């Protein structure tokens, strides 16, 4: 099926979006990795252990489906390997991303022994850098994907342990969170020095800090100060735009997220738990809103269900003052029916036009 002709190409559309100028239509922002591997016939793990194949698989798939952004390298368990633990690549039939197998912190003493990783050699970072060098030559935005402070902390010593220590040994959690925040800044600094700050687009994924786990007060006390600090330091490097991906139940944290600087403008990407209208109300004056199509619906829902979800998001998103991008609420599962991915682009054609 053909789409209506676009007045802008992807590059023009994204440039206009970030410069606050009029667009022809809502951009389609990708969040699919294992899906791309399957699309071109690779095992899923190549997305994480073979940067060149990962880049190629994503670029081909993103072109095929009409996404308005380039490939990226990253996964939600970030932090385990980089701080000295071990991860396992996805090899089983029901796995989609690397998983932690050994946490770097098992005991209170381990927290004292924890040191900031060498950003040039630690864990996945050499592969991420190799990937970014491909982004640089593409050309496509040079992204670096990191966990947020709480998500990294959970990957360093398990979310359960962080939760228990928050109430029993808060000083340990403060130390881990501070190291996570410092590490985030260290990595972005390295990327900025390598590619130039103007070219670098950090993506910070902070799903674990949702109200599925934390109370808003715990978020405010433990997470929020580190988000503020690391964001301000990153923007202080000369970075123009950051993306915060905050899937999960974040509704009670929204007023705090609204205070986290993400750039001029930043992008704030939401899961299906946060209505696009609520996202705009809280964050929409300072950031581009992205989201929030349920990965479960994409994987298991009918095309009509996906289409209706996209329609709802688009009709609300068109009113976002800094712009809106239609995006999956989290990673598109590898076994998602391809037609459901196509439906996102189709819905933009039908309901996402500004002109």
């Amino acid at each position, binding site marked *: 099926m053909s789409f209506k002709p676009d007045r802008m190409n992807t590059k023009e559309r994204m440039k206009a979006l970030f410069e606050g100028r009029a667009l022809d239509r809502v951009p389609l922002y990708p969040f699919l990795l*294992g899906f791309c591997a399957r699309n071109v016939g690779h095992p899923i793990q190549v997305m994480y252990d073979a940067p060149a194949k990962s880049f190629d698989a994503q670029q081909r798939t993103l072109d095929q489906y009409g996404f308005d952004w380039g490939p990226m390298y990253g996964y939600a368990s970030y932090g385990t390997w980089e701080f000295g633990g071990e991860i396992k690549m996805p090899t*089983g*039939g*029901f*796995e*989609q*991303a690397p*998983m*932690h197998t050994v946490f770097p912190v098992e005991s209170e003493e381990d927290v004292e022994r924890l040191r900031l990783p060498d950003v040039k050699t630690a864990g996945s970072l050499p592969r991420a850098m190799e990937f970014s060098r491909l982004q640089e030559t593409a050309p496509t935005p040079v992204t670096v994907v990191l966990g947020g402070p709480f998500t990294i902390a959970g990957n360093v010593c398990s*979310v*359960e342990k962080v*939760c*228990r220590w*928050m*109430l*029993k040994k808060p000083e340990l959690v403060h130390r881990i969170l501070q190291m996570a925040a410092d590490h985030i800044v260290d990595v972005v600094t390295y990327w900025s020095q390598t590619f130039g700050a103007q070219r670098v687009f950090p993506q910070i994924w902070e799903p674990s800090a949702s*109200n*599925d*786990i*934390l*109370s808003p007060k*715990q978020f405010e006390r433990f997470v929020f100060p580190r988000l503020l600090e690391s964001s301000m330091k990153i923007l202080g490097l000369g970075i123009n735009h950051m993306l915060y991906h905050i899937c*999960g139940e974040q509704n*009670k944290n929204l007023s705090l997220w609204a205070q986290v600087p993400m750039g001029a403008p930043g992008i704030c990407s939401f899961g299906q738990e946060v209505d696009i209208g609520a996202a705009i109300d809280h964050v929409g004056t300072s950031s581009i809103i992205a989201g929030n199509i349920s*990965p*479960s619906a994409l*994987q*298991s829902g009918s095309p009509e269900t996906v289409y209706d979800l996209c329609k709802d998001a688009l009709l609300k998103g068109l009113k976002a003052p800094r712009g809106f991008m239609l995006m999956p609420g*989290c*990673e598109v*599962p*590898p*076994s998602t029916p391809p037609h459901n991915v196509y439906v996102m682009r189709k819905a933009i054609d039908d309901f996402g036009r500004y002109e």
Partner: protein
Amino acid sequence: MVPEQRKKEILDGIRNAVVQYDEDQCVSWCMTSLQEGLDAYETTMKGLAAGMDTVGELYTRQEYFVPELLLCSDALYAGLNILRPHIRPDHAASKGKLLLGVVEGDIHDIGKNLVKTMFEASGWQVVDLGKDVKLDRFVEEQKKIKADLVGLSALMTTSMMAIEKAVAMLKAADPGVKVLVGGAPLNSEIAANFGADGYAEDAVSAVQEAGRMIKKQPV
């Protein structure tokens, strides 16, 4: 015979210790209850389990979140470790038996662990297979223990698909098996499509749903 006033004081102490996630206090009150001759089963149900009921209400009202739940659970188990060896065999019969686990491909087990706590607090016997459990193992264990319910969970959208397969495998082995499912990417519609008999949004509602499912079973 323990005076009613004193008994109330001890049970309140245990209940409050669980709610306030005070593990030391919980242990201390449970030991006191044994020393003063309270029945261990009654203390478990009216002290520890009642405390966990209150915790569940606080979670439902969003006054407690996962950190509090985990520590309340720790206090509960600290008390159970004291009382369990003293529960008379005629009281040891459970409300039901639950076979529980996180399906293959998924290592996220906080939710499953909280489900285990809530079921044990409610008087269920729980056989916990852990996380990233091969689907065959659910079938094999169910054949062995014939649990009243099998509970399956997943956090990731991809591993959620293992639930569908596990339900099919369990039903193929025993069409009468009852399967309760949960986890962030699921909802009641997906659970029904997967062939599950019940769905619960969280650990607290899982116990209620289990009660409903067991009642529906033919006598």
